[in-house]
């Protein structure tokens, strides 16, 4: 009997559900039906089973839970009749997937059905297996499927072929079992079997090199002949789509030829004629024809060098690009991205059209075009393209601005011909899309500004003008606030005027207005406000004449809702009020930020290891907030916060992201409500300026923290800071500093005398690279070990973009300080050192282990080395 004939209850149920006026009604009907079905399931009446399951499938499609029907599927599959089995398998595919344990129970039924005498039942089993089989089932049932590829009925053969593609995807080891069977399918005349056979071969080629080689030598010519016969065949109504015989099969064949031709000049040579024929003869006025052309172009571009064909392909893409159909233009943009690798000039010719596509109303086209434009940029056209893009940024949709501004920033950073231009372009982006700009981008801008001393005046004036108009762009405000804080005196005195500038008159109080606006605006976020507060403190020293007014603004922040702001306001107020004599030293201009260190940090903090490895030069990192809030917050922080806890969370460690090591747990700590990372970053940063190469240290107040041997040889800056100040301030801050230095980077020499000694080890050695670890322990903290890693290049070539990464098990915590350099000279002529700090929570029970990965560029090629260190001295 037919469960679906009209008048049965499935129809009635669907009607009842459709008749519901409200969602609540629908839920009520479904609940009642589900209750009935459960009751019937409990009665275990085989008669209603398939109807119940059909109803459950409908309920499932509406989004209600139906797990209680899973066992019913299995029972139906196990029943003898075809209609029951059919609905059982359908239910199985809808209600279950490969991850459910229940699915394992069906393996046996599937095996029986694959061997069933009724070919329709075999078909059902193959279909279910192909759609949802798990790796285990694939292993168990592969022999049956392999046999069925040779079955007499073509319907079974094609199902078995696709089923095999799923099996080899799930269990690549099984690929070789299917190679011969797959090759036999390529000789088929039946289109359905042929297309599935081609698909299976394609899959095998992508999985196994041996299979690829086999098909390449045995089947290339046959496939070319099949394609040629089909291209030249007379009209076949059954397969004809818009004048093309079976475009689907065409496309699959072209795709298989692509993998066969790629990397093999002989095979590529064989297929040039037919590819040229397809490329020239295919009708391009309908979608089906264009689909074939598109695939053909892709194959031409992938196979080994055949220049004449590539010209043909590029011409087709040019035609596509000027097509009025958006779909065709979309695929053209897509393909041009690949074409750019071998014929940049040809793609550059279409630059104007592509730029137009960036402005298309369709988001899909815009996105593709933008990606393509990014690839088109080079040193010669960067100014013109950037101008076009920035002009468009002004009028583009809000939701496109984020992507667009990110790309512009990327282009500008990568190809900037000079600093002035870079700063100009970045300011334009910040004005138009400041709220979308990522942190690392404006951090980088500040680093660049800081390094361009001759442009400080120009930049701060430009920012001042911009921020008056675009005060709603958060990141613009931040950069402006920082620059005005640092270079406020240059702003009011018009120092360093460039020829291109119009002179402006800014009074001291105008400059303070901007900062006040930023700190009082209700929608400024806490970072902006914190930066504004620091800027005010700086201005209080730069503009002594209006320091009373500045003090008033600072005092108002004592009422801030943010604890951190309150505290800083009180502290800054006391600096303005009582410590006039040290104020100017305290709020001196920031030392020039070290671009190289910043870039290394940036590269390191990228979340995806793949992208870091692939193009280190491109990476856009993180973490310049510190300079901003740095100088002071930090000094004052020392007394108030738990020093050891603070540094322990320092550094936006790329390792956590990269390797999934969970170091982040310790980073949340009480008392640092305002941007806790900011404060800790600073510490990192300060240390990173100092530790690796003390030679860089200037006498600025910031650097005193970094001088490793401050204990024995206090720097001048420290003296000036502590001596004139009232006693309580002096003691707090200097104690803090000593603590800090103990915790963070005690000088190795001191270690040797204080802590127990451990022998150095060779942690890793390959033919090209040697890594040595020396150990030291901070006295009183047995759990934590300081490791100094020394990298030596044993090869005759210089390594660039050197990155060392390490991962440790959960019971360990690991910190990496920045490396001393990212370039490793050849043949052991110098070394890179990097400090690591490992905290062993199982000290005394477990010893250290570490896995590491070293990436560098050798002659422009990326090299990756990996290793594990398990020879750490005991007791660390």
């Amino acid at each position: 009997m037919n469960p679906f004939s009209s008048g049965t209850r499935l129809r009635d149920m669907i009607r009842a559900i459709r008749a519901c006026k409200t969602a609540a009604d629908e839920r009520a009907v479904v609940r009642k039906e589900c209750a009935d079905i459960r009751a019937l399931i409990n009665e275990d009446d085989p008669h209603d089973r398939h109807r119940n399951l059909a109803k459950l499938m409908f309920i499932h499609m509406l989004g209600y839970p139906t797990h209680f029907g899973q066992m019913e599927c299995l029972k139906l599959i196990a029943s003898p009749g075809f209609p029951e089995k059919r609905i059982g398998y359908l239910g199985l595919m809808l209600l279950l997937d490969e991850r459910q344990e229940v699915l394992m129970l069906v393996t046996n039924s599937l095996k029986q059905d694959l061997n069933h005498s009724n070919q329709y039942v075999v078909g059902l089993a193959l279909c279910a297996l192909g759609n949802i089989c798990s790796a285990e089932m694939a292993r168990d049932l592969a022999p049956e499927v392999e046999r069925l590829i040779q079955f007499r009925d073509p319907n079974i053969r094609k199902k078995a072929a696709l089923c095999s593609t799923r099996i080899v995807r799930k269990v690549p080891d099984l690929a070789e079992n299917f190679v011969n069977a797959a090759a036999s399918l390529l000789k088929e005349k039946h289109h359905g079997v042929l297309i599935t056979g081609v698909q299976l071969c394609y899959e095998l080629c992508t999985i196994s090199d041996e299979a690829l080689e086999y098909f390449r030598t045995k089947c290339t010519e046959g496939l070319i002949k099949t394609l040629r016969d089909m291209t030249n065949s007379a009209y076949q109504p059954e397969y004809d789509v818009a004048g093309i015989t079976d475009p689907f099969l065409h496309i699959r064949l072209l795709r298989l030829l692509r993998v066969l031709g790629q990397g093999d000049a002989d095979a590529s040579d064989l297929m040039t004629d037919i590819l040229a024929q397809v490329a020239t003869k295919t009708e391009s006025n309908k979608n089906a024809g264009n689909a074939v052309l598109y695939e053909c172009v892709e194959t031409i571009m992938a196979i080994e060098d055949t220049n004449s064909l590539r010209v043909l392909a590029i011409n087709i893409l040019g035609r596509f690009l000027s097509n009025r159909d958006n779909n065709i233009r979309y695929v053209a943009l897509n393909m041009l991205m690949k074409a750019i690798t071998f014929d940049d000039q040809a793609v550059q010719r279409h630059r104007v059209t592509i730029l137009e596509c960036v402005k298309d109303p369709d988001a899909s086209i815009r996105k593709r075009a933008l990606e393509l434009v990014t690839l088109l940029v080079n040193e010669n056209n960067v100014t013109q393209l950037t101008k076009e893009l920035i002009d468009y940024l002004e009028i583009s949709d809000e939701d496109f601005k984020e992507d667009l501004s990110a790309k512009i920033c990327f282009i500008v950073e990568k190809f900037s011909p000079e600093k002035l231009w870079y700063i100009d372009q970045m300011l334009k982006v910040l004005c138009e899309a400041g709220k979308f700009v990522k942190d690392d981008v404006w951090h980088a801008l500040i680093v660049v500004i800081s390094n361009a001393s001759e442009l400080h005046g120009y930049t701060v004036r430009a920012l001042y003008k911009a921020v008056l108009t675009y005060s709603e762009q958060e990141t613009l405000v931040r950069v402006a606030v920082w620059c005005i804080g640092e270079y406020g005196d240059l702003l009011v005195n018009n120092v360093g005027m460039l020829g291109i500038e119009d002179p402006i008159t800014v009074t001291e109080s105008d400059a303070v207005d901007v900062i006040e606006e930023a700190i009082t605006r209700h929608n400024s976020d806490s970072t902006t406000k914190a930066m504004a507060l620091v800027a005010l403190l700086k201005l209080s020293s730069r503009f002594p004449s209006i320091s009373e007014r500045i003090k008033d603004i600072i005092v108002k922040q004592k009422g801030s809702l943010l604890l951190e702001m309150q505290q800083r306001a009180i502290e800054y107020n006391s600096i303005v009020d009582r410590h006039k004599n040290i104020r100017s030293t305290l709020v001196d201009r920031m030392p020039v930020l070290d671009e190289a260190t910043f870039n290394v940090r940036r590269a390191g903090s990228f979340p995806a290891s793949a992208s870091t490895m692939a193009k280190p030069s491109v990476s856009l990192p993180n973490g310049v907030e510190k300079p901003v809030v740095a100088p002071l917050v930090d000094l004052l922080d020392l007394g108030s916060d738990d020093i050891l806890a603070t540094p322990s969370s320092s550094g936006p460690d790329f390792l956590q992201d990269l390797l999934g090591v969970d170091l982040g747990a310790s980073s949340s700590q009480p008392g640092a409500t305002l941007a806790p990372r900011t404060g800790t970053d600073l510490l990192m940063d300060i240390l990173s300026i100092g530790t690796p190469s003390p030679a860089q240290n200037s006498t600025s107040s910031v650097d005193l923290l970094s001088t490793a041997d401050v204990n024995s040889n206090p720097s001048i800056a420290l003296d000036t800071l502590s001596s004139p100040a009232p006693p309580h301030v002096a003691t707090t801050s200097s104690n803090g500093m000593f603590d800090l230095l103990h915790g963070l980077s005690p000088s190795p020499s001191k270690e040797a005398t204080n802590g127990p000694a451990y022998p150095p080890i060779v942690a890793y050695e390959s033919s090209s690279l040697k890594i040595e670890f020396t150990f030291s322990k901070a006295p009183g903290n047995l759990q934590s070990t300081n490791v100094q890693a020394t990298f030596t290049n044993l090869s005759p070539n210089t390594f660039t973009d050197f990155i060392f990464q390490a991962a440790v098990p959960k019971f360990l915590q690991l910190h990496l300080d920045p490396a001393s350099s990212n370039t490793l000279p050849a043949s052991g002529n110098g070394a890179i050192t990097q400090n690591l700090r490992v905290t062993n929570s199982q000290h005394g029970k477990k010893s250290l282990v570490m896995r590491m990965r070293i990436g560098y560029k050798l002659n422009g090629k990326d090299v990756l080395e990996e290793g594990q260190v398990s020879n750490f001295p005991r007791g660390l």
Partner: protein
Amino acid sequence: MIRFILLQNRQGKTRLAKYYVPLEESEKHKVEYEVHRLVVNRDAKFTNFVEFRTHKVIYRRYAGLFFSVCVDITDNELAYLESIHLFVEILDHFFSNVCELDLVFNFHKVYLILDEFILAGELQETSKRAIIERMSELEKLQ
């Protein structure tokens, strides 16, 4: 490879959902909701392709119904667009002049037709006639 196929009406009601990769139920609902939102308001002149997470959705609208196919980023968009049309032709032939109600009341048959057309996320048969014949053979066994 096809990740999933969705058939939704303008209100976002799912009329068919076939997944060739395992997803949690909650994730499926999210996907269906997101895909509907992506395609429903697009201009008719726009491309039939939308990027969706790390994949792309090829969709085509027939009256009030959206046929959406989610495929790998490297797949041939135009070919899938063509196969959506072939599927619709098959449905049209099978139900002789298909409308949304046919698909609602005979949803199980739509799934069965789809299983004859696509398997393991790949095209299984390109002949409309072959699929219709196969379906009628199977119907006779009921």
